[in-house]
């Protein structure tokens, strides 16, 4: 049984992982056959399936990190996630669903700090042995349809 404290703890660790720049650890929050997608409220409302990032395997998340580290070019920056309270839905056969609002500030190398994204995580959590619950699915629904410059680090 996955409870609110389990999910809040996992969310907090997830946010700290990205904000600390430990991208290599980020895929570890997901199950092997996970879904991870970043979209916008409008696309979500209209049922459009595309994503800014669209992954349906842990391998694709690891590839994303490798590309950010080794291939892609972008100015150095960091995020600060501020998470709201998760709203837990009743657990179903496929796991426990939650919805969690977020704010993400982006801090550029020159110190400029902007509100980069607001939105909500639509999550499906499953137990992973005795360890903390993991994400079977995370749909990141950004409120705005605009992305400033580029989206490199995951949300």
């Amino acid at each position: 049984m996955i409870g609110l404290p389990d999910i809040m703890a996992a969310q907090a660790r997830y946010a700290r992982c990205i904000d600390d720049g430990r991208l290599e650890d980020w895929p570890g929050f997901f199950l092997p056959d996970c879904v991870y997608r970043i979209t916008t409220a409008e696309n979500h409302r209209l049922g459009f399936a595309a994503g800014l990032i669209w992954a349906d395997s842990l391998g694709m998340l690891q590839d994303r990190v490798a590309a950010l580290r080794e291939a892609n070019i972008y100015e150095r920056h960091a995020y600060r996630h501020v998470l709201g309270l998760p709203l837990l839905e009743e657990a179903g056969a496929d796991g426990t669903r939650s919805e969690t609002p977020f704010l993400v500030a982006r801090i550029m190398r020159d110190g400029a700090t902007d509100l980069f994204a607001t939105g909500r995580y639509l999550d499906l959590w499953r137990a992973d042995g005795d360890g903390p619950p993991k994400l079977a699915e995370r749909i990141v629904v950004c409120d705005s349809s605009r992305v400033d410059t580029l989206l490199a680090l995951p949300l």
Partner: protein
Amino acid sequence: MPDHSLPAPALAAPPEVPWPADTLTRVPYWVFQRADVAALEQTRVFRGDTWNYLCLEAEIPDAGDYRASTLGGVPILAVRDHDGEIYAFENRCVHRGALIALEDFGNAREFTCVYHAWSYDLQGNLKGVAFKDGINGQGGMPECFRMSDHQPRKLRTAVVAGLVFASASDTVPPIEEYLGEQILERIERVLGGRKPEVIGRFTQALPNNWKLYVENVRDSYHASLLHLFFTTFELNKLSQKGGLIVDESGGNHVSYSAIDREAEAKVAAANEYAAQNIRSESGSYRLKDPSVLAGMDEFGDGVTLQILSVFPGFVLQQIQNSLAVRQVVPRGTDRTDLHWTYLGFKDDTPELRRMRLKQCNLVGPAGYVSMEDGCVGGFVQRGVVGASDRMAVLEMGGSDAESTRTRATEASVRGFWKAYRAHMGL
């Protein structure tokens, strides 16, 4: 080259350095910086003798469907009427100038301005004025007021393979002529006879002048140098051929690369890399899930990449199975909105649709082979501060703006400037 039939450019002050009239290989940085240039572009380029993309026909399939857009900064509505035709008119009430439609898209029986409830039909004709005859014989519009004398400005529209274009100009050539046969053919190659379906829409706010983005789109030279994804993961195809088409005006282009089947056959015969045509003998970086690139040859011609641009601000993209249209909208001298509309077709097999979704990862603001394009324009915009009297050098591949078999050239960037200067009279 300057078109001397145009009136002298209405710049507020002389340029910091003259733009050499006899070459396409120099571009002064002041064109990316000056507010007077940006203002002139809106009238001479976007509202001038050009065709501008508004939306997809598939986005307004039924009578009353509309989409709001802008053209040269001017708010525009594209509307499907009951006769099946698409009409475009300025989204501005003829009464006091308020926006007629406030939503970005929707379906309407008619348009009614919220301010004083003046109403318009789906072709943009003024059809109703609230309290026109006054109330109890008091007030109302004067006898001589004729609704027909007050109409929003209408735009010419044209539909090409499901793409809706509009023009504010009465003198722009017909769209087919404007695009030219080669460009038209390659639009048809992707969209012809198909029923496109939107699978996503995203807006990328670029920190640079719009011309730096449209240059980048036409710049086949930078592709393998700035975008290291394919190289890092050693995904470059061994046997590729490609080229560049620049139309006569210079403003429209196609850059493409395709699998060279002959070379591929030779490679296979030599039994080199027999198992696959992807180079992978020494890679230290490999994709853990290479399914992202397991695309299919849906057009049956081996073309894995086709980037097509139409002057001034339209792009049609095929990168493997990732299809998108991009609309470039200036928002001042150093801001640009890039609107991405990702496409599939109604008859996509589930496998093909899934591939399109996976290949979302290649393009857009987070794209493996495109995220750099979101920031590199900003690097130029910031780099050229204080350098208004200096010029960019465009000599790769010579000095002309002609079609070529190589992509190691800046021919289509020069082509853009050829068309731009003709429209601007600069």
